């Protein structure tokens, strides 16, 4: 009986300590704002600012059309009259959880991932290497 008790206690002690790394105490998630230390760069908004870069295509004649940028939710967030040959950049604000933007211009309909608060579009096609 004594042996069994000793064995049980040893087993309990083993499992109770097995998962704890030496000298490291996990930091609990603060439950209130008073316990919280936020990152200095955090802006306390549910949006993100994305800089959009559009690479123009040198064209034979001036080609103008409406350039529109859409959030991932389908909302138009930027709309201009644009000359296709021009390189432009501008900033838009979209929900923080968006991870891509869509841009239309004439029959162009393109998507770009948002990476490091940046999205890139180009009117120069990918060479199809026919």
């Amino acid at each position, binding site marked *: 009986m004594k042996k069994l008790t000793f064995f049980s206690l040893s087993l309990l002690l083993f499992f109770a300590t097995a998962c704890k790394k030496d000298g490291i105490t996990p930091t609990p998630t603060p439950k209130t704002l008073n316990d919280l230390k936020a990152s200095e760069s955090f802006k306390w908004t*549910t949006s993100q600012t994305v800089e959009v870069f559009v690479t123009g295509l040198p064209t034979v004649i001036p080609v103008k059309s409406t350039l529109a940028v859409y959030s991932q939710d389908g909302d138009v967030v930027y709309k201009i009259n644009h000359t296709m040959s021009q390189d432009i950049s*501008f900033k838009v604000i979209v929900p923080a959880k968006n991870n891509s933007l869509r841009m239309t211009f*004439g029959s162009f309909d393109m998507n770009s991932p948002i990476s490091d608060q940046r999205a890139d579009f180009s009117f120069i096609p990918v060479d199809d290497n026919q």
Partner: protein
Amino acid sequence: MKNFFNSITLSFIILILAGFGNTSQAQLILDCESGNRAIEQGNCWVFGAVTYVNTGVINGSWSTRSNSLSNPSPTASWIKTPWMLPGTGNVTFQTKLTANNGSTRGVRLFYIPYDPSNAPNYEGTPVEFYDWDWPTLNTNTYTITAPLPAEIENSTDPFRIRVSFVGTGGNSRAIGDDYVFPGTYWSDPANGCVPLSTGITDTDGDGVADEDDDYPTDPYRAYNNFFPAQNAYGTVAFEDNWPSRGDYDFNDVVVNYHLNRVTNAQNQIVEVLGTFIMRASGASFRNGFGFQMDGITPNKIIEASGFHVSPESIITYASNGLEANQNFANCIVFDNFYKAMSHPGSGTGINTDKSAPFVPYVTLNVTLKFLENGVPAAGGVVNLTELPATAFNFYIFIKQDRGREVHLADRMPTSLVNTALFGTGDDDTNPGTGKYFKTSNNLPWGIDIIQGFDYPIEKAPISEAYLHFVEWAESSGAAYPDWYSNNPGYRDASKIY
């Protein structure tokens, strides 16, 4: 000649418009000097098994090169022009072989009529109008001169010209350069390279087609640029105990906002239309609310209107309706919440105590006029790129003390802030590092939820009303980016107004 072409921006294709003299006419030229075939493809040239090369060229730095010409089919290796309105004269280009092997080598020229029923390329059946064969297989350079056929000369219908390289036996290829086609460029690179349309309707003549124009009959307006979205409101919510930290119920001033930057066809700001819905003030202080347009000087606004001004307002207004004595344009939307909305008679504030009567929201429609019939204010025009959504810098000023203004985290104060309050109480503002309106733990006095927000009731910290708010903040927004949503387990509804 080649150097001249290279010296102008559009070196790869030059459109010489009629009008330089009686003898000039439009031409499409392909000299390959962009070195990037994709640019020509973007301009509606099409290449079938023809690439660009920069070795063994005929002229300049780049030429075209066909496949190995062991196929007599004219659809094996070819170049097609964009759609063009043919002129008169000769198609010309230079060509040579890469080696003198093979049995036969030649070029064939076709015109391709426009067929509106044959989407998506709208190409009819090609018609051959010229053929030429190498007299002997050698590597000499030949100049090909092919007259445009009479049946398409000066046509008002668009055509494409196809240059095909053909041959049998061996593996030598054809190099080509300095292609010249008499005619007027007539393709639309913005619309799948279909022939240019002359049927676009632009009622107000501002250069924006009616189908794209949000104001098709107004030549002074073209586009709406909404923020956060056409049918959506964002919410800003503030604590008003700055520079001391408050109770974090974020309901001392709660305002919904919706902005529309109306622009013209030149992408200049015509007006900013702001809709602000006053929702709650869980405060005993009499607070005001406004926004600065960062980087925009006040003299660029003709007139501001639609805001709420109390009879005994502490604000000094300039003649254009903006706040006076500011470096950048500031619009005070309301100078005293309690003058624009009435206290319900019970409870601490307005619309933060569920036991008190609800006070109907007050909507203020603010207009900032930048252009009047196309004419700007004395400060000149403002382009849309100068006034991105990020330029709108919302803030409150507390207890009718104009200098005691508090903005969203890290937004710059206005010229009228009392800088002596920086670094006092719990504030850890440090203009030198760009840190504004945050505590030493980087907690803010204001939050911005562009999706809109149901604010907490009086004295209920936001972290108790929204159960994942702290995780969101601690992760710098990575965890629970939708913490404000009404998902199961996200809220304690009893603590939300």
